[in-house]
């Protein structure tokens, strides 16, 4: 069974009387454990697609099944539960709560799971440690570098043991060196922990880390092909 299955997804906005087809019949399947990069110019519908599979937005028409669950019929709160239990988000702008420690940011998804305070703290510490942020638990986002902030965001994304990570331009605000570090982190999560990762990017270097690349144009999928990333061929792996 596919983790993500969409069938004829349409998202139509009404822009001043003229309907805009942000998504124009998108059908795709993504299996558990895949590492997919979605590419396309701005306005191609890739972000709209991400928002819908992230249960942040709903399609105008079409079906979307996440882990076999038909999401179109779910209420706001049921969608919130799905986001909490099944999806971890990594955003371009990190989207950490300001004036809140790294630890508390990572605790946030567990907070809405009514998890006990002590357990929350313990798991958040573990997640931060796993991402090499030991000792930074009590730093606020503005005391951390961009790469560190994004690692806090990744810790927050995976702390609830979700099967799916959605990363929307995760390296868009980072320099090349840090971008590669973050991508290697995602690669490890996919390779070692079998997490499904869907990544939106417009950079070929970043998409090159994935094993499947889907191209969007004008709300449709124009190409969908397997890709063999450098990290599967260790001898060609860049030094960084």
């Amino acid at each position: 069974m596919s983790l993500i299955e969409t069938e004829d997804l349409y998202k139509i906005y009404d822009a001043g009387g003229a309907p805009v087809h942000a998504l124009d019949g998108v059908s795709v399947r993504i299996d558990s454990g895949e590492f997919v990069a979605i590419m396309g110019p701005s306005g191609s519908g890739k972000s709209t697609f991400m928002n819908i599979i992230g249960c942040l937005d709903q399609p105008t028409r079409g079906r979307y099944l996440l882990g076999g669950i038909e999401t179109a019929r779910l209420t706001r709160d049921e969608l919130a539960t799905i986001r909490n239990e099944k999806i971890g988000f990594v955003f371009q702008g990190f989207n950490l709560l300001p004036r809140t420690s790294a630890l508390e940011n990572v605790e946030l998804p567990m907070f809405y799971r009514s998890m006990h305070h002590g357990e929350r703290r313990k798991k958040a510490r573990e997640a931060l440690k796993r991402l090499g942020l030991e000792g930074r638990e009590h730093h606020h986002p503005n005391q951390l570098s961009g790469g560190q902030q994004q690692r806090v965001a990744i810790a927050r994304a995976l702390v609830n043991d979700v099967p799916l990570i959605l990363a929307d331009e995760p390296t868009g605000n980072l320099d090349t060196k840090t971008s590669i570090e973050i991508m290697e982190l995602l690669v490890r999560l996919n390779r070692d922990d079998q997490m499904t990762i869907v990544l939106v990017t417009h950079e070929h270097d970043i998409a090159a880390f994935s094993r499947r690349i889907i191209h969007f144009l004008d709300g449709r999928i124009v190409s969908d092909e397997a890709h063999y990333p450098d990290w599967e061929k260790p001898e060609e792996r860049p030094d960084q």
Partner: protein
Amino acid sequence: MINIPDTLKISLRAIRINKMRSALTMLGIIIGVGSVIAMLAVGTGASEKIRQQISSIGSNLLLILPGSTTSGGLRMGMGSQPTLTKDDADAILREIPRVQDVAPILSGVAQVVFGNQNWSTGVYGSTEGVFVVRDLSLVSGRMFTEQDVRSANKVAVLGQTVVTNLFGSSNPVGQIIRIKKLPFTVIGVLGEKGQSMQGQDQDDIIYIPVTTAQKKIFGTPFPGMVRNIMVKVRHAGDINDVENEINSLLRQRHRISSREDNDFQVRNLADMMQMAEQSSRVMTLLLGAIASVSLLVGGIGIMNIMLVSVTERTREIGIRMAVGAKTWDILMQFMIEALTLSLMGGVIGIILGIGGAKILSVMAGWETVVSPVSVLLAFGFSALVGVFFGFYPAYKASLLNPIDALRYE
């Protein structure tokens, strides 16, 4: 399912981050609650004072005054017609069983001399009944008796102020004082009564037998005349019935035909007092209502700030929703924040209100009573304000679309 302590922590942090703004928002509630408490304290204090005065005058009292005279078409003031006598008073006590006691009063101002001291004071001629009617108590000596009244003995019972002015600290009982040059033996000293509602010193007084007053001190146009009669009724509930009975008894005694008006008037003291108390209660309500308006304004301030806060934190709301916050979680987060603001303001307001009431009573000399009910009321009201004015902004926040909230700049 919602984690109250942690949500409270979030609220406290949000309040702390904008210290100045939170303080100003709270100030509205502080002033509102504080003024409600202080105003109710002033009003309750005034009612309390009136109630004390009612009991100091003596409850269940009726006052009978002579009627007004008409001379040449000109109506004279109440009491200008000398129609009441001591016999009327005796008849009321004799004929109406529900009357506990009566006190005919013939009073005037007279110069009183003891040794080389002299003092001008109110001299009240009455019967032994006055001690019951006016709830008088003695600190030394005795009251005058029916025997003293019948024989028109020259005996006097003094109030505290008179004693202080004539005798200083020595014991006046057994001494001879002169009232209008006539010697009187002091037989008793009254306990302190304090000021009357009109601010009169109720201890600046001398009681003597009414007969002595009539014959020797003031003189009367006809025998037995008194200025007024005070009547004490056994049970407060009977006061209106007794009033009617006195009316018919006196009409009969004064031979007033059914076409004529009374030549006397019966006044119900308790009624007058109750009216005063009523008006002070109305004043309390009015003060409270005015103060509540400021509480309302404070509430609107909370709503205003919460709306700003929701807009400012749209992105935060988006992040929370993205990681799984439900409608209810967001609603509660902002409700608890508004409630925290209003309750903190409420508690500070209560403290300042109680303090303000104390200051008022010290500085202005007003009697203030902070009742626990008013504190509970103010606290409950500020909680209500928080819930009421916090709901709309919180509701608005909870209905945000997660994707729009996340994209909000």
